[in-house]
């Protein structure tokens, strides 16, 4: 089947899609967007987290056909907001992860970035207080880091929240 979808603001078409394959497979193997990672394929690890019509979801658990006409935002789309083309800058969350040393092997990082972006959108992005440790742990409970670098990840989320709150919005 053919699947038309909007990914990171761009209309795309995936051809020769097997209806039972996942959105994750479509993104990685058919649309050349390998940022979302394929690990557990059962929703346990969160490495494939993307925005699906504005809501975070594990893309491994969305059937390709369900993505027809939908808006997807992947980790590749986070940086786009900060700049364009060769001037593309990393997003606040990405910067914070780098600075806080929240990246070890990096496999879980894309999912954590998207899920963190969502947490910040729902908190400081709406003028609410920055999330505390408990809220961060809850929001990231579905993202596993097998290097177990969770403390640095939580530091990074705090840092990103501070900066995003200071900048007033997701600018």
């Amino acid at each position, binding site marked *: 089947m053919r699947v038309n979808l909007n990914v990171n603001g761009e209309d795309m078409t995936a051809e020769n899609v097997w209806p039972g394959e996942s959105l994750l497979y479509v993104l990685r193997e058919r649309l050349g967007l390998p940022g979302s990672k394929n690990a557990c394929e059962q929703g346990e690890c*969160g490495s494939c987290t993307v925005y699906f019509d504005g809501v975070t979801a594990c893309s491994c658990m969305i059937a390709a056909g*369900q993505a027809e006409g939908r808006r997807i935002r992947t980790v590749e789309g986070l940086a786009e907001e900060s700049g364009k083309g060769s001037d593309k800058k990393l997003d606040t969350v990405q910067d914070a992860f780098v600075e806080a040393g929240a990246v070890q092997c990096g496999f879980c990082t894309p999912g954590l970035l998207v899920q963190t972006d969502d947490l910040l959108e729902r908190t400081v992005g709406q003028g609410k207080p920055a999330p505390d440790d408990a809220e961060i742990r809850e929001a990231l409970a579905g993202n596993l880091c097998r290097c177990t670098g969770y403390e640095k990840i939580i530091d990074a989320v705090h840092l990103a929240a501070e900066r995003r709150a200071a900048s007033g919005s997701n600018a």
Partner: protein
Amino acid sequence: MEFLSPSTLEEALEAKSAHPDGVPIMGGTDVMVELNFDKRRPETLIDLARIPELAEWGPDGEYTRLGAGVPYTRIIENLQKQAPALARASRTVASPQIRNRGTVGGNLGGASPAGDTHPPLLATDAVIELASVRGRRTVAARDFYLSFRTTALQPDELITAILLPAPKGPQQFLKIGTRNAMVISVAGFSLSLDAENRTVGTGLGSVGPTPMRAEAAEEFLTAEFDWESGSVPSEATVRRFGELVASAARPIDDQRGSADYRKHSMSVMARRALSWSVTEYRKGATRCA
């Protein structure tokens, strides 16, 4: 494999009637695991995510009508008053990403005895609405689970809604697992006190081939509880209630827990649920007086 995307319920029911072996998919959090791991190769997938009716909720007489495709996140955000135990159970499901997609309809369709929403549906006497080209019918949750992963749902039917009775007293949900998130329940328990009709409802998960009630425990507490003023039950009453709940369980040993542990945890959860409920009931009784 054929992928069908009906945009109305009528089309979906026709599709299910034409393809009784077709697998309905909504949030995909169960179905896609089976596809990804090659455990299932259905000839037809029927995507229900484009049918507006399934994603809606609202008052319906004495009930709150919950579309079968409303994700857990929406239930947590919107139905804590209308369905406290179900909202609590929804909060314990997996992770935010899964709660954004998973639905009660999917829990019912999969009918795993470990499904988190079964105990509250049993305890609160919720009603499940099923539809086919032959028409709509309702089945009490208490009559829905027949045997291991087998329910009253017929091959040509879809689960369209869950009717949640307005709460008439405290409702609780407790669950045992190895961590707070991403846990398939080792054992789950829900308790509902109906102050108006003076009845007790229970729901037990992960301790038998199907979700189940502890009817002897319900009868015991219905008779023993001080419905008038909600006085704290004696230690013996609380202990007996826990024992009766545990004795209804028919657990097995598996990788998530031993049968003995599950039975024991069931009695502990039952006692806790009862004590929390009594505290809440007394607050309610004071307010009314």
